[in-house]
């Protein structure tokens, strides 16, 4: 199936999230746009603090005060025939949003220990989700919960149903989180660093599982990670974020083979084992990511960029647009203004 035939499950347009704090406003997300198709894994990568989690919390209606989604649209297409529903058009605590969140739209969090309740049996926690999002009776829910536990690779499901989260290993807990997230057949799964901190062999098992279930349920997956190796192995498409914005988006192979944005290029050069990295001394990106309260005018990457065009990059933010038939990027090397700027300098 080509990308065009596949049905778009989620479409995010120019989402921005602000936190108003005593020290000033943090622009956690500064305008993020992407689409996710059915049976597709979109990886969102970027360094700590760039807004990966916050942009997905916006979709889930999980931004808490003093945070606020200050602009944008989040369109959810339940299936091909139904009209898109703007998740921001209803209150995040409304019955509509409650019935979608955890049901059609589901999320796995980074820390399974804090996301799972320590005082409820794990079976009960799956049961809760089923109660809200399905009309199965008690016996039906028990059966479904055990099926899900088996599906995610927990043996002895009927016995394990009655155990507590601390009785499971880290890998097992993450599987239980996946079982809870998937028990209501979601159309879209957001997985926020679901394997960070797990061992490679357990990570490989969990990634295999997510891939299988993606296909089986024709589900869209947003996979948030800072690990480019996991991306190269698992994603279909990749969006690279820097300081609250997506700077580049392309299919996986294009992104790794022909990165366009100077940040993506520099990032890939510093990843050990990537074809762009050198053997001895690694090429690194000068400087560090600006802090959350720092204001950077123009392109957020310009203070660290080796291609920065003074007078343009430090003044005006480049639009995120198609730069060739495969890639979208936000960089003045590809904008009309950038081309004019270069000509006028020459």
């Amino acid at each position, binding site marked *: 199936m080509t990308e065009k035939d596949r049905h778009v499950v989620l479409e995010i347009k120019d989402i921005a999230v602000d936190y108003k704090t005593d020290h000033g406003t943090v622009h956690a997300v500064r305008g993020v746009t992407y689409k996710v198709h059915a049976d597709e894994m979109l990886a969102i990568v970027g360094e700590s603090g760039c807004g990966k989690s916050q942009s997905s919390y916006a979709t889930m209606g999980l931004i808490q005060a003093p945070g606020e989604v200050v602009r944008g649209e989040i369109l959810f297409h339940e299936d091909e025939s139904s009209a898109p529903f703007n998740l921001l058009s209803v209150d995040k605590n409304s019955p509509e949003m409650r019935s979608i969140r955890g049901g059609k739209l589901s999320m796995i969090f980074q820390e399974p220990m804090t996301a799972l309740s320590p005082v409820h049996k794990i079976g009960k926690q799956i049961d809760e989700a089923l109660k809200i999002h399905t009309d199965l009776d008690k016996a039906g829910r028990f059966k479904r919960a055990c099926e899900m536990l088996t599906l995610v690779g927990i043996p002895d499901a009927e016995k394990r149903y009655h155990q507590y989260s601390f009785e499971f290993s880290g890998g097992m807990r993450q599987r239980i989180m996946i079982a809870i997230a998937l028990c209501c057949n979601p159309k879209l799964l957001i997985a926020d660093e679901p394997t960070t901190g797990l061992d490679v062999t357990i990570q*490989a098992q969990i990634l295999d599982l997510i891939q299988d279930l993606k296909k089986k349920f024709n589900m869209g997956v947003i996979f948030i990670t800072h690990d480019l190796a996991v991306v190269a*192995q698992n994603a279909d498409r990749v969006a690279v974020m820097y300081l609250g914005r997506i700077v580049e988006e392309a299919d*996986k192979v294009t992104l790794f083979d022909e990165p366009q944005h100077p940040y993506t290029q520099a990032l890939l050069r510093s*990843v*050990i*084992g990537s074809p762009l990295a050198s053997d001895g001394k690694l090429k*690194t990106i000068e400087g560090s990511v600006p802090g959350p309260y720092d204001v950077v005018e123009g392109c957020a990457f310009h203070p660290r960029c080796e291609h920065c065009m003074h007078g343009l990059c430090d003044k005006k933010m480049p639009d995120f647009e198609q730069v060739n038939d495969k890639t979208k990027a936000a960089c003045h090397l590809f904008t009309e203004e950038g081309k004019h700027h270069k000509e006028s300098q020459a």
Partner: protein
Amino acid sequence: MKPLLNVENLSVWFPKKVSFFGKPLTWIKAVNGVTFQLKAGETLGLVGESGSGKSTTGYAIMRALNPREGKIEFCPDGDTVYDLASMDQKELRPIRKHFQLIFQDPFSSLNPRMTVRDLIAEPLKVSGQGTHKEHTERVKELMAEVGLNPAFLNRYPHAFSGGQRQRIVIARALTLNPKLIICDEAVSALDVSVQAQILNLLMELKEKHNLAYIFIGHDLEVVRHIADRVAVMYAGRLVEDGSAEDVLTHSLHPYTQSLLATAPRPDPHFVYENKPLSGEVPNPAALPSGCVFHPRCPVAKDCCSEKVPQHTQLDGKSVRCLMHEEDSKHNWDESFSLAETIQDD
């Protein structure tokens, strides 16, 4: 010349259940019979899954933990050998300056109420050498060396980014001119671009000061990049060790092979041939009989649950697997190919 470090048959156990009279009844066997050597100026990468005993091995070498048995021969000057395992804390004190530890978490390993100057100078102050002014000079020198601006001398750790804090930790470790630094997941918590900066720094410092590292990590690509030699641990045992290139490209042990087969690579064209290992690491309080890896091993035979493999020297590596032992290798047919077996499963 004598090796800097010669670890022989090192075991570290923690009491699990203790009797009414304070006598341990059952043990968590965290490290069992670990043997390896490290030369001055060399980097040994120590890899393995969570709970395999990497940190415990490192802490026991530094005598932050007491070994149950084994030798830890340390030779800082190429001549005098100290067996750290048999020394008490008082005897160890003058030798401690030769080895240092760098932790994973640059946030919790720095006291937030101390300035960078005091943090870096602390080991000097404790050792009682030099004046306040001399300490400050040394701190400035070290800050410049690890890429920090010496003008920030009087700032507190919270004013620095994660990567900069790890630089502070490194400067502090260098204060007393150590011979050996144990880096326990020293770059694991850092973002890729910062990780690259810190790895460059560690490699630069090693060249300059002829430092030896025990580099504990779980990212095989990072370890391949920085290590001269690699040792692989599984459930408290060292299952394979040899040159980094050898172990990470022509591994002999089925566990190392499985790890390598599933570790993701930052290259979308890489073809993964094998399925991930099933199951989980065994509980160190109830280790499997025979080869500790046998319940998960894709090529295990009956003998594997009965006999404990010993170190076998083969192709420049030391490997602990019955498949490679003279007495038991007949159990694996000549024509047999490991890769095919894993694939079929």
